[in-house]
C-alpha cells in the first residue's frame, strides 16, 4: 500500500459566482521514502495540490488516502492531528511566528502534541539544521536562509512521515538555496518522504521523481533523468 494515494481529485474555488478549476482530476501515488518534485507553470495548481496533500484543505471531489485512511472523511480535529504527527510543512515565506525565539518556533508542533521533553527535542532539531547557537534569536535577527532552516527544524521536530515544501527556496539566493536543498537531501536519506514544489530545474534535480502540472492536470510523471549530475549540490554550479 502506498503512503499517499490520490484518485481523481478536483478542487474548485468559488468566488462571487465565478468558478476556478484549480485541480481538474489528478491521480498520484507516492511510496514511503520517495523524493518527489512537483513542477509546472504558475497557476497550474501545485500549491492547491500541496495544501490538499498537507490536510490544510479539502478536495471538492475525489479521494485521498494517507496511510490507507480516507482523509476526506476525517473531521477538523483528526486533520489537525495528522498535520501535527504525520506531516511537516516548509513554506516559501518561512512562516515563523514573529517576536518568538527560534527555539520556541521549533517547539510549536510539540506544544500542540502535548509532548513533555519539548525543549530538548526542539534543541536537537535546531542542532540538526546547524542553528543550535541561534536558539534564542528572533526571526528578525535571522537571515532568510536561517529562517528557512528554523522552519525545516520545526517541520521535522515531530518526526513526521512526510515533509511538504512549497517552493522552499523561492525567496533565497542560489547558494543559500543549495544549503536548504542539502538539508532536504539529508532528510530524504534518513527515509523521510519529501514532496517539493519548485519551478527551477536545478532544485528539482535533487528529487528522484518529477511530476509536471499544467492547468490543474498532471501532464507527466517520471523518474528524474540525471540525478547524479546535481547530487553533489550547488557547489558545481
Amino acid at each position, binding site marked *: 500500500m502506498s503512503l499517499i494515494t490520490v484518485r481523481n481529485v478536483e478542487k474548485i474555488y468559488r468566488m462571487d459566482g465565478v468558478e476556478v478549476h484549480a485541480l481538474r482530476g489528478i491521480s498520484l501515488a507516492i511510496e514511503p521514502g520517495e523524493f518527489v518534485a512537483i513542477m509546472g507553470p504558475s497557476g497550474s495548481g501545485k500549491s492547491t495540490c500541496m495544501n490538499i496533500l498537507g490536510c490544510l484543505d479539502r478536495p471538492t471531489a475525489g479521494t485521498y488516502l494517507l496511510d490507507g485512511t480516507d482523509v476526506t472523511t476525517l473531521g477538523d480535529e483528526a486533520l489537525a492531528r495528522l498535520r501535527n504527527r504525520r506531516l511537516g510543512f516548509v513554506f516559501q515565506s518561512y512562516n*515563523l511566528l514573529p517576536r518568538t525565539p527560534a527555539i520556541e518556533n521549533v517547539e510549536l508542533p510539540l506544544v500542540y502534541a502535548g509532548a513533555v521533553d519539548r525543549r530538548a527535542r526542539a534543541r536537537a532539531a535546531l542542532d540538526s539544521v546547524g542553528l543550535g547557537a541561534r536558539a534564542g534569536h528572533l526571526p528578525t535577527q535571522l537571515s532568510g536562509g536561517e529562517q528557512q532552516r528554523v522552519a525545516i527544524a520545526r517541520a521535522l521536530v515531530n518526526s513526521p512521515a512526510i515533509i511538504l515544501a512549497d517552493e522552499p527556496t523561492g525567496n533565497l539566493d542560489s547558494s543559500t538555496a543549495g544549503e536548504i536543498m542539502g538539508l532536504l537531501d539529508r532528510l530524504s536519506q534518513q527515509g523521510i518522504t519529501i514532496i517539493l514544489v519548485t519551478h527551477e530545474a536545478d532544485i528539482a534535480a535533487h528529487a528522484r521523481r518529477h511530476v509536471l502540472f499544467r492547468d490543474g492536470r498532471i501532464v507527466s510523471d517520471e523518474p528524474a533523468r540525471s540525478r547524479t549530475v546535481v547530487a553533489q549540490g550547488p557547489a558545481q554550479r
Partner: protein
Amino acid sequence: MTLGASFRIALRAMAANPLRSLLTALGVIIGVGAVIAMVAIGQGARRAVTDQVQALGSNLLTVFAGQAQIARIVRGDAVQTLNIEDAEEIQKAVSGVTGISAEYSRQAQVVFRAENVISQISGVTPQFQEVRNFRPARGEFFTEAEMRSRAKVAVVGKTVADRLFPDTEPIGQRIKIRGITFTVIGVMEEKGATSFTDRDDIVFVPLTTAQRRLFGVTHVRTIHVQVASAQEMPAAQEALTELLRQRHRLAPHQDDDFTVRSQADILQTFTSVSQTMTVLLGGIAAVSLIVGGIGIMNIMLVSVTERTREIGIRMAVGARRRDIMLQFLVESVALSVGGGLIGIGVGVLGSRLITRFAGWSTLLSLQAVLLAFAFAVAVGVFFGLYPAQRAARLDPIVALRHE
C-alpha cells in the same frame, strides 16, 4: 495544549503591546475600582450610622414629638406635644425604665470674648449622662439643684472647647449664649465625628435653663428612655405608648402625637436606606465593568484580525480549533484579570483617598472585592468568547494566505 502554554502565549501577546494592553484593561480597572470604592462608601455610611445609634446608649427608646416620617424627624417647634412631665411620668409609671433624659436642642451662637461659634445648644437633665453614656472628661456636669434653679452653667463639647478656648482653660470661663452669660463648668469627653454630624460640636445646659431662659418654650423635643434589658423593651414601649396616649387625651381613633423608636428601628431604617444606596452605587459601577468588557472584545477582535496569519501557522503545525479558542480566551481573561487586580488596587486606594480628602468614612468589604473580581473574570470570558470563536473558525489556508 495546556493552560500554562496558553497563558504564556497570552502574556507574550500582551507584553508585545503593553500600552494597548493597559488601555484595553482600563475599562475593567475603572469598573472594578468603582465597584469597590462605591460599595466601600455605602458600607462606610452604614457603619457610621450604626456607630452613632449605638453611641446613644444601650436599650434605649427614643420618643419624638409628633408623627415622624420614616428616616425623617420633625424639627423645629411645630409640634409641642411632649413635656418634662411626660418624661417624669414615664419614669414613675412604666416598669423596666431605669432612666430618662428629656432634651430640648436648638442651634445658637456661642460667644467667648472675640471668638464665636454656631453650635447645638442642648438642654438636658443630669440623667443624660447615664442614659446617653456621655460624660464630662474634665470639670463636672450640672446637678439636680442647678437644674431646678435654672442655673446659667454650661458643659461644652470638645469641638466647641477647642474653637472657643484654643489656649485658655475653659473651665470657669464665661460665655454668652443669646446674650445670656453662662459659666463653663465642664468639658465633655470626645465622641468623634461621623459622616453626618460632629457629636462634639455641642453645648449642654440644664433643660430648664434652655426652656425658660434661652428659648422661651415649655415643651421638649425628645425623651430618651433607658430600659433595664433588651427583653423588657417591647413591653416598655407598649406601656409607654399607652401612658402618653392617656396623658395626651387621645381618643382611640386618633393617631399618636408622638413617635417611639427603638435603636433597632432606627438602625433598620438607616440600614435599609444605605443598603439601597450601596446596591445603586454598585450597580452603576457594574455598568462600567460591562463597558470595560466591550473594550476588551473590541481589541480582541482587532487582535484576531492582526494575528490571522499566526493562527494559520499554528493550525498548520497541528493546533486544533479548541487550542486556538483557548489561546484567545485565555488572553481576554488575562486582560480582565490583570485589569481586575489593578482595579482592586485602585478601588482600595480610591476609598482611602475619599476618606482622607472628602472625610467620608468608607468600609472595604472583602465580599465586594471578591464579587467585583469575579465579575471582571466573567466579563473577560463572556466578551472574549466571540473573538475567540472567530479565531477558531478560521480556515487554515485562508489564514495562512492572510497578509
